[in-house]
């Protein structure tokens, strides 16, 4: 293995079931059910997944859900806004922790 990430590994996802088939089956059944059309449309779920993929910085998920978003009729403007949602949440999550910093600092300083 020359690199940690190889795009062709995405198509090998299902091989995670090789030594634990029952667990893999349960996971993929659940995965499929999550992304099926429900109270949220498959299109909405693809955009959420794309945002989460950027939040967790998974290149496989970014590849998969960019394609899924396009297949669901999303355009680049929509996909980009989804990435900004991830960016805003990640940035906000850092900044809101600043409240802790402030409380601690204010307690410790004259």
């Amino acid at each position, binding site marked *: 293995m020359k690199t940690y990430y190889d795009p062709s590994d995405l198509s090998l996802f299902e091989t995670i079931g090789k030594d634990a088939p029952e667990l893999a089956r349960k996971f993929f059944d659940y995965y499929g059910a999550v992304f099926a*059309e429900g109270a949220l*449309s498959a*299109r909405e779920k693809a955009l959420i997944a794309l945002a989460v993929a950027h939040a967790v910085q998974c290149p496989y998920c970014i590849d998969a859900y960019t394609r899924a978003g*396009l*297949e669901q*009729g999303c*355009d680049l403007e929509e996909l980009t806004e989804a990435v900004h949602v991830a960016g805003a949440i990640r940035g906000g999550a850092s900044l809101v922790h600043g409240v802790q910093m402030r409380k601690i600092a204010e307690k410790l300083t004259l």
Partner: protein
Amino acid sequence: MGCPQETQAQTLPGDIEKFSAALKRHGLKLDRGRCRILQVNVGLICDLCCRHCHLTAGPHRREIMSAETMKEVVDFARRCDFELVDITGGAPELVPGIEGFISDLADVIPQLMLRSNLTALGSQERNDLLSTCVKHRVALVVSFPALREAQVEAQRGSGVWEKSLAMLHRLNELGYGREASGLELHLAVNPGGAFLPADQAAVEKRYRRELQRRWDIVFNRLFALTNTPLGRFRRWLETSGNYDAYMGKLAKAFNPTVVPGLMCREQISVSWDGYVFDCDFHLAAGICQGEKRTHVRDLSAPPAEGTLIATADHCYACTAGAGFT
């Protein structure tokens, strides 16, 4: 011109089985059912150069059905027992004599369908054509690939968005797409690239809601169509480095259950110069129907039930997912 009955020159990536092998593996054969649809491609002239076009249609094309060939097609229809005629192009609206052709076909075939790109329908004051369509209750199948201007124009060209919306409004005013009017308006949606269409029912639901809410436009049905790797679209796939992956995607999405309902089993396609093909994609690829190139003037009836249909690897586009049925 010869008739390659197996396939055109194939350049499938090595790890993808040929379409004919996929059929065989599933114990299937592609043969004709009762031929109830006459599809007529009246020419390759078009006011647009859509990037997904399998026929490489455009303003530069001069292949247009002549009055003589139109008469031969009508005579052929009279000899047969078709339920529906599907008129396509190119842009049929730009073909001289199209109104008379529609009227003549209306005398011999009960249901008529015209494919339109919406922009040509609005050009050159085609009120005569619209009147003909209304008079003969011609169902319109119109291209409307996205709900956003940028997506539509990336695929179909600058200025198409506004013209398309204006024509949809005009068609609604005429009664097209309105309940109980008897004038059917269907939307055709192709993906804007090297990926498969979304679930048709979900897309139809979203289009119905958004077109009504944002532009007060109504329609009857929506067809989510897969882009076929031929013509201008195939060239784009190759030059953009997407061809192998796209063919892999189509092959992986092969759905054996749609084969019995494929459109080629119950239709015959006629080219602008009067020759017959199993479908518009084989027409684009030059794969003729039967053993040799046959003109409609020489046909007494459509191909018999059970006649084998030639296959090619672009057939994967019709069997992907929900299929082209």
